């Protein structure tokens, strides 16, 4: 065997003629030196010769009956199943590498205070989402910002569309009930921007009828589950009124960015935080008291 401990003991007749070693000899596992030594000893050792024959014959008979099997044609069904599996894997890989090429561009080298806060924030928001709990520390983080949080459930999406009351400097959130296409258009813009753009680049979108805007990824971080999350900001022009907003979205297993929350900054004299149930996507309508 190639485990050479001590050539002297290895080449002692007892070791050389041990059954396992004779088998290794038959299977071509030994060194030339060992082979020659065994061949010198074999003629004098009847028992060992018989063992060598046994190992030789058993190997030959298995070889003879099994080797020709490899010449048989491979069944068409088997081949096509494997080709299909390979094709499926290839497609999956391509998809993964397409998304992976985006991800490295987004990585922030070292998570700073902000990122760590964001991780906490997104974890906290996710836990709120689960527990329907909404209180305390979060409001401090968001001081001076008028905050409307829209917690959407799994697969949910911020569907509230808004119009600004320019005179009052108050923002009214108005659901555009009949604008599914606009929602879709906006949603696609957000998804595209978060998937394809490095932070700081803007994606402009235009709807027509005086409605347009841009989406700009601002920062990227990973949440505790290891998923990428991105903070982004948006400016939307709704018939002459500019609305700035911010949001955080995290990418899920389905490769879709899901809004964790959205912020619409107001004039800052009041803060409000409104959790909304996953179904109700319209946070506030005509809020005088704000």
């Amino acid at each position, binding site marked *: 065997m190639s485990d050479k401990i001590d050539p002297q003991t290895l080449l002692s007749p007892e070791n050389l003629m041990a059954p396992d070693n004779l088998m290794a000899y038959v299977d071509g596992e030994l060194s030339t030196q060992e082979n020659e030594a065994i061949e010198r000893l074999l003629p004098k050792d009847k028992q060992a010769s018989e063992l060598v024959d046994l190992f030789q*014959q058993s190997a030959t008979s*298995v070889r003879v009956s099994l080797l020709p099997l490899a010449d048989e044609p491979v069944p068409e069904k088997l081949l096509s199943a494997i080709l299909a599996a390979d094709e499926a894997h290839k497609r999956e*890989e391509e998809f993964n590498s397409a998304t992976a090429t985006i991800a490295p561009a987004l990585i922030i080298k070292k998570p700073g205070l902000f990122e760590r806060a964001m991780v906490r924030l997104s974890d906290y928001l996710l836990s709120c989402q689960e527990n329907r709990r909404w209180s305390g520390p979060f409001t401090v983080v968001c001081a001076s910002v008028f905050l409307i949080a829209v917690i959407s459930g799994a697969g949910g999406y911020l569907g509230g569309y808004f119009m600004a009351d320019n005179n009052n400097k108050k923002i009214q959130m108005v659901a555009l009930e009949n604008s599914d296409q606009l929602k879709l258009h906006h949603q696609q813009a957000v998804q595209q921007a978060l998937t394809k753009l490095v932070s700081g680049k803007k994606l402009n979108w235009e709807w027509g009828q005086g409605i347009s805007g841009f989406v700009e990824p601002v920062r990227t971080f990973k949440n505790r589950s290891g998923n990428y999350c991105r903070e982004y900001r948006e400016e939307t022009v709704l018939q002459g009124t500019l609305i700035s907003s911010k949001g955080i979205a995290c990418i899920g297993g389905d490769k879709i960015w899901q809004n964790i929350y959205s912020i619409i900054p107001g004039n800052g004299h009041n803060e409000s935080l409104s959790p909304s149930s996953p179904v109700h996507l319209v946070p506030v309508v005509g809020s005088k008291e704000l």
Partner: protein
Amino acid sequence: MTEVGEKIVSLLPQLRRFAIGLCGDVSQADDLVQTACEKAIKNQNQWQEGTRLDSWVFRIIQNLHLDHSRANTIRRDYALNTAHQAENCVDGVRALESRYDLGVVGHGLDQLSLSQRSILLMVCVEDMSYRQVAQTLDIPLGTVMSRLARARQHLHRILSPDSSGTIASKNKNHTDPTKVVNNVR
């Protein structure tokens, strides 16, 4: 095609041979090979480049076969009285067709344990070294050798006509359907 996929396709005849030697039944072997290859393609990142791809897939085949045999034993225990069971037993023609005729060697292989059988096939048919087998099956080299030696001694007893009376009849089992049915695991 992926690189691994291409290699696997070129290895198919060999993989089938191994699987047939392992389970003794062509259609079962083809199922085994298919499942194993699908698994290998899907998890191809786990294969370490530079190592033998065939031995990696051999191992997957062997593990699948082991799971399959276990499941079969359990199923048999639960379904002793079902019509399905009876049907399987009677269907000698199908068994005759599906059992690959490896003659007396097939019979001998049947009597070995799964691990003895797969080590024997790897070394004697697929030309793998003891070391490669040990790495593939993740067992010590000494274990490979002792199992292999035992398997060959066992096989030799079955194959040599003079060693026992039962062998004489087994030598001509090619034409004996009942023998073939016995061979089906």
